[in-house]
C-alpha cells in the first residue's frame, strides 16, 4: 500500500515538473517570437525594431509583459462576467495542451500518445469555443461579429488541415508522432517532404496554407481585422486577459511550425547522418533538440516573412479558398495517397 502511494506521488511529481517545464518553455518561446517578429518586420521595412530595452532590446517583450500585468482589468458594463473571464483560459489552455505530444527530441516528449495527430487536431479546435465565448460575453456588436468571423474561419480551415495531416499519417501507418519521426531517420531524403511525390508535397502546401489561416496570420488574419472591425473578438479585453489571447496566438504559431517539422521535415532527426545521427542516449537527445528547434526557427521566420509580405484577403475569398480549393484538393490527394499506400509503396 505504502509502495503504491510513493509511486503515485513520484508519478504526480514528474507530471507537475513536466507541466511546469513545458509552460516555462512556452512563455519564453512566445516572448522570443514576439521580439523576433518585431525585429523581422522592422528589418523588412528598413527599420531597427526594438533596440533600447536591455542589450539589443532583448528585454522589450519582458517589459511589455510586466506592463500588461499591472494594467487595469476592465470588465465592460453588461458583460457576462463569468464567461468573459473564462474565455481567455478557453483559448490559452488548448494551445498549451498541444505541447504535450510534440516530440522536442529523442525521448523528450512530455507524453507520447498513440493518437498524437488526432489529439493535436482535436485539442486545437477547442479554442474556437473560447473565441465565440469571448466575443459573446463582451456585450459588443463588433466583438460578436469578429468572433463569428473568426469561428467561421477556424472551422472552415480545420477540415483542410486534417485532410493534410492524414496524408503523412497514412504513409507512415501511425498516428504516433514519435513513430512518424523515427520513420524519417537517416538523411534528409528520407523526410516525408522529399518522398511520395506529389501527394506529400501537396499535403505540405495545404498544411502551410491552412495553418496560416488557423493561427490567424496574414493573409488570413480576418479575425484581427482592425480596419473593418475594431480589433475582432478581443476588443473589450485589456491587461492580462488580452495577454493570454496574445500568448495563445504566438504559441499556436510555434505549434504550427512544430507540427510541420514533425510530420514533413523529419522532426528531430538531423539532416545528415554525420551531423549527430551516430550518437546515442542523452547526447543524441541534446543534438535532436537542437535540430528540432533549428527547423522550427526557420519555419517560424518563414511565417513572419510571409506575414510581413502579403495583404489581407476578403472574407469571401477566404471561404472560397477553403471550401472550393483546399477541401476538394485534399480529398483527391487523400484518394491518391490511399492508392499509393496500397499499390505502390514498398513496405
Amino acid at each position, binding site marked *: 500500500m505504502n509502495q503504491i502511494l510513493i509511486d503515485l506521488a513520484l508519478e504526480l511529481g514528474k507530471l507537475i515538473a513536466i507541466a511546469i517545464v513545458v509552460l516555462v518553455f512556452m512563455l519564453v518561446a512566445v516572448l522570443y517570437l514576439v521580439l523576433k517578429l518585431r525585429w523581422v518586420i522592422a528589418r*523588412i521595412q*528598413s527599420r*531597427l525594431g526594438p533596440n533600447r530595452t536591455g542589450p539589443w532590446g532583448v528585454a522589450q517583450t519582458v517589459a511589455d509583459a510586466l506592463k500588461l500585468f499591472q494594467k487595469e482589468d476592465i470588465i465592460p458594463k453588461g458583460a457576462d462576467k463569468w464567461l468573459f473571464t473564462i474565455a481567455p483560459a478557453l483559448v490559452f489552455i488548448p494551445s498549451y495542451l498541444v505541447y504535450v505530444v510534440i516530440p522536442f527530441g529523442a525521448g523528450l516528449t512530455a507524453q507520447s500518445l498513440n493518437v498524437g495527430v488526432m489529439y493535436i487536431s482535436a485539442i486545437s479546435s477547442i479554442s474556437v469555443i473560447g473565441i465565440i465565448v469571448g466575443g459573446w460575453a463582451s456585450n459588443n456588436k463588433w466583438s460578436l461579429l469578429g468572433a463569428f468571423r473568426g469561428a467561421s474561419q477556424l472551422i472552415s480551415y480545420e477540415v483542410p488541415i486534417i485532410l493534410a495531416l492524414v496524408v503523412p499519417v497514412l504513409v507512415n501507418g501511425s498516428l504516433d508522432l514519435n513513430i512518424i519521426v523515427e520513420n524519417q531517420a537517416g538523411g534528409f531524403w528520407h523526410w516525408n517532404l522529399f518522398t511520395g511525390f506529389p501527394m506529400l508535397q501537396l499535403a505540405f502546401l495545404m498544411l502551410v496554407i491552412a495553418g496560416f489561416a488557423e493561427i490567424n496570420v496574414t493573409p488570413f488574419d480576418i479575425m484581427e481585422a482592425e480596419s473593418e472591425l475594431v480589433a475582432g473578438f478581443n476588443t473589450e479585453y485589456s491587461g492580462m486577459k488580452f495577454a493570454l489571447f496574445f500568448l495563445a496566438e504566438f504559441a499556436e504559431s510555434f505549434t504550427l511550425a512544430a507540427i510541420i517539422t514533425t510530420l514533413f521535415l523529419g522532426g528531430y532527426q538531423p539532416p545528415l547522418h554525420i551531423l549527430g545521427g551516430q550518437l546515442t542516449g542523452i547526447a543524441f537527445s541534446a543534438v535532436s533538440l537542437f535540430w528540432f528547434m533549428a527547423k522550427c526557427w526557420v519555419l517560424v521566420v518563414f511565417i513572419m516573412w510571409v506575414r510581413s*509580405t502579403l495583404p489581407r484577403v476578403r472574407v469571401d475569398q477566404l471561404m472560397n479558398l477553403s471550401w472550393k480549393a483546399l477541401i476538394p484538393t485534399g480529398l483527391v490527394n487523400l484518394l491518391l495517397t490511399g492508392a499509393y499506400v496500397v499499390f505502390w509503396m514498398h513496405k
Partner: protein
Amino acid sequence: MSTILNDIKNSFVSIIKGLKVTAVNWSVLRPCVTELYPEQKPQLPEAYRGMPTLPVRPETGRSDCIACGACARMCPEQIITVEVDKTDPKDRKPAKFTIDISRCMFCGLCMEVCPKGCLKPARTFELACLSREGMIYDLEKLNKLGGELPPLPEPDDEKSSSNK
C-alpha cells in the same frame, strides 16, 4: 479548367514576387535608415534655421543689438521683449532681451527685420525643458546659444559693408 490552373499559377507567381521584394529589403542590399538619435545627431542641412539667437561679436564681447525694438514689434506672437540700457547715450545696448521660445513659430521675421542683422538662427533643435520658465531665453542664454560671430572683414574703403 485551364483558367483555374492559370489562376493557381499566377497566384503563386505573384506571392513569390512579393516575397522576393521583402527578401531584398531584408537583405544587406537595403541598409537600415533609422537614426539612433541620442547617440547619432542628425545631419542638419546647410540652410537649417532654428530659434533666433544673439551671437556675440568677439571684438566687443557682446552682440550688435542696439535695442531698437524692431524685432519685438515685428514678432507676430509678441514673444520678444526688449528694454534699452540708458546708462550711456552713445552706446545703445539692451538691458533686457527675452524670447519666449515656447510660443515661437520660427517664422524668421525678427531676423529679417533686424537692422543690425544681429539676430541669427541657431543650429539647434533640442529645446525641451522641464518648465515654462525654462523656455524664456534671456540675453545671457541667447548670447551663449548664438556663439561667436566671425571677425569683421578688413575695411577696404570708408563704405564698409559690415551689416550685410
